[in-house]
């Protein structure tokens, strides 16, 4: 099995390169120039030339790419044109905010989604099923920024329970995490429900009843265990999404996460930062897919054996 995973990891390397080329070319296709954002009235052409030289903006794109790649392989992601600091440092600065929000949100959406899924599957086609699915759907039906603002209005302004924004404390994490989690819970609930219903229709479930096992034992030990396999896979694949997908929530709650970094870098064409951040996301994805595969294999012995 380790061989299989080693192979998967090796396969990630070409994917990584393909992705780096895609990212690089995409952001360079986008019209605009980072230096325009720096040049103010009175600034000299000479200074502009100096900057162009410093960031290799005058070189042909393939050369720029190769230089970037070369530096990257030596562990240097370059430095931000706008913010004047190493990209690595910027990423490390913003990553914790994204990770704390993302992981909390994933955990929350997992708990919410799975429990809604369980309720819904256990009470299939009853009012509880519909209710649970509606609650799960709630997050999907509205944009996160809208939900976030409404949450602020209710919990921070009217009730004054939680801070409006911020990023340092635990309490400031609650509202954004819930906002993001609501968006993901719908998908998880749906997958859980479908998976549970499918497992519940399997022959072996009847056999478990026949063995004299109680309903609860069957539901939690067998049905859920089998149904969680696809759910876990989805979670693993969503790591990239966790790191960068919460931009609007980050903006609304002013959390300096990777999403915000990426968006502002994108708007200002800060190429090294976009490249670095996208690459970090890609690494997250690769890691996530890898983790999902591992989890999948550990959770499902059939897959484990196929991976020999």
């Amino acid at each position, binding site marked *: 099995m380790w061989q299989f995973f080693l192979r998967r990891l090796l396969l990630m390397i070409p994917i990584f390169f393909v992705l780096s080329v895609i990212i690089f070319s995409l952001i360079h296709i*986008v*019209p*605009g*120039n*980072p230096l*325009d*954002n*720096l*040049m*103010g*009235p*009175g*600034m*000299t052409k*000479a*200074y502009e030339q100096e900057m162009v030289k410093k960031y290799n903006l005058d070189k042909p794109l393939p050369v720029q790419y190769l230089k970037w790649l070369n530096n990257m392989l030596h562990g240097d992601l370059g430095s931000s044109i*706008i*913010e*004047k*600091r190493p990209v690595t440092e*910027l990423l490390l*600065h*913003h990553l914790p*905010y994204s990770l704390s929000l993302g992981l909390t949100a994933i955990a929350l959406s997992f708990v919410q989604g799975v429990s809604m899924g369980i309720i819904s599957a256990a009470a299939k086609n009853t009012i509880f099923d519909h209710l649970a699915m509606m609650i799960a759907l709630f997050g999907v039906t509205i944009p996160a920024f809208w939900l976030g*603002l409404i949450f*602020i209005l209710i919990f*921070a*302004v009217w009730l*004054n329970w939680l*801070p*409006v*924004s*911020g*990023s*340092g404390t635990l309490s400031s994490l609650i509202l954004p995490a819930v906002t993001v989690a609501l968006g993901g819970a719908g998908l998880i609930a749906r997958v859980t429900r479908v998976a549970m219903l499918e497992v519940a229709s399997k022959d072996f479930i009847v056999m478990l009843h026949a063995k004299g096992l109680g309903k609860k034992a069957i539901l939690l030990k067998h049905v859920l265990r089998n149904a969680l396999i696809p759910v876990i896979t989805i979670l693993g694949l969503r790591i990239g999404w966790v790191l960068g997908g919460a931009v609007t929530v980050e*903006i*609304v*709650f*002013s959390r*300096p996460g990777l999403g*915000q*970094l990426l968006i*502002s870098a*994108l*708007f*200002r*064409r800060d190429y090294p930062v976009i490249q670095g951040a996208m690459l970090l996301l890609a690494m997250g994805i690769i890691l996530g897919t890898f983790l999902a595969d591992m989890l999948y294999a550990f959770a499902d012995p059939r897959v484990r054996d196929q991976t020999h």
Partner: protein
Amino acid sequence: MKKRLGSFLLMLAILVAMTSVQARAEKVLNIAGNPNELGVTTFNPIKVELNHDAMTLIYDKFMEWGADGKFYPALAESWTISDDGLTWKMVLKQGVKFHDGSPFNSEVAKWFLEEMKTGPSAYMVGAIDNVEITGPYTITLHLKNPEPNMFFNMAQDFMCIPSMVAYKKYGEEFGIKHVVGSGPYKFESWSPGNELVLVKNADYTWGPSIVDNKGPARIDKIVYKDTKEESTRFLELKTGKIDVVYAVPTMFISKIEEDKSLRIIRMPGDELYHMVMNTQSPPLDNELVRKGIALAVDQESITKNVFANAGKPAFTYLIDSLAESKIDPKDEIHFDLEGAKAALDKAGWTMGKDGIRQDKDGNKLTLKMVAKNESSYRRAAEVIQAQLAKVGVEAKITLMDPSSIRAYYKKGEHQLAIRSYNWENADILEWFLNSKRMGYPNAAMWHDNESDYLMQKAMTRSRSQEEREANFKEYHTYVLNKYVWAPFYLPAKVFAVGSRVVLPKNSRARKFMKIEILDWDLK
């Protein structure tokens, strides 16, 4: 397990209590800074392109600019200028120490003025030929050409003087990890996208003459929070988490004014909203069409309805606090519906049945209008779109991010562009209308020999402040009559201040807060 959780919670509670106790003992000012300054580049004044407000708290300058338009001594205690305007003698303040303990003296001043030439703001000291040290605290500047604008430059936020010792010591890291100035506040920590923390410089006693309190400051700590979303900033202010909000959006003004515990401070603005017309894109290459469009923009209505009368309508290309903006009223651009229609008719664009003007070939007067995808530009664009529709001009709006829009200007595909600039000097006209800067910044694609001549004259051949004024007025009047822009709004700087803040009674400073922080206090 439960026990451990309990003790953890207890510790947490103690921690929270401690921090809150500390907070009460210390005077901490929380600021939601200017959203345009978020993600600022560096605090290295020599290398910085986008300046942060906090620079003026960390560093001292040679001079301060008063609300009266006069320049007050700061680190330059006094100065004398030779008649030909080419020799400046400056006496420096004594006893000034940087945060790292190194002294400020003529050596530092010379080094600074020379080092400035290596950065993006080199033009600020561009007129200086060389700096001569004439004593430990006296220097003489020898200029290449007369530069009356030197006062203005010296008082600019870009001319912040860093510690020479620290600057040399930290190299690349200066301005990012290590920020050493001589101002009333010391740089403590900076977490981009999150917050910037400054602490009081207890040794500060050399406050400039423009403030009453010569130091040290009364507020112990200043925290700039990088909160972007406007509603969130407003709520933070309302819930007391923030004491000062910069650049309050106009729609919040009335809401804040309703709240008795909050105050709105309006300062004269340095910004001008205008619509740029691409003078090389037909039919805008026709001066009459430009005139028609410029006259169709109802400045008063925009000021009142879009910006809630927070600022003033703009009728020229310069902000009204500049002397160069005071030109003959007949040369100003004022809303004139009939005049607009007449100009367009005269240009050969007659009203069509569908309410859109067309020329004799049946081409419709439809123009591409671009604007930055930010609230105020969008709103202005939408209103101007409606106003232009009234004179039979159809504008199709495209909103873009700032980088795309500059790339777009460079390609010259735009026709109308809703823009604004912040600048407090008439030389901005050169920046935007110099034919050598086509596309961007010269988005008007303005190329006119007479204009270029007048610009050259104003920029390089003015020997005194008065002469400079006159030259720029001439230049300004000329371009106004060519209708390259349609100016419409002069925003005021609007700040919201929470109840804890005690503001100075008689403010003389031109800018909000900045060095005047010395006179501020917290309840």
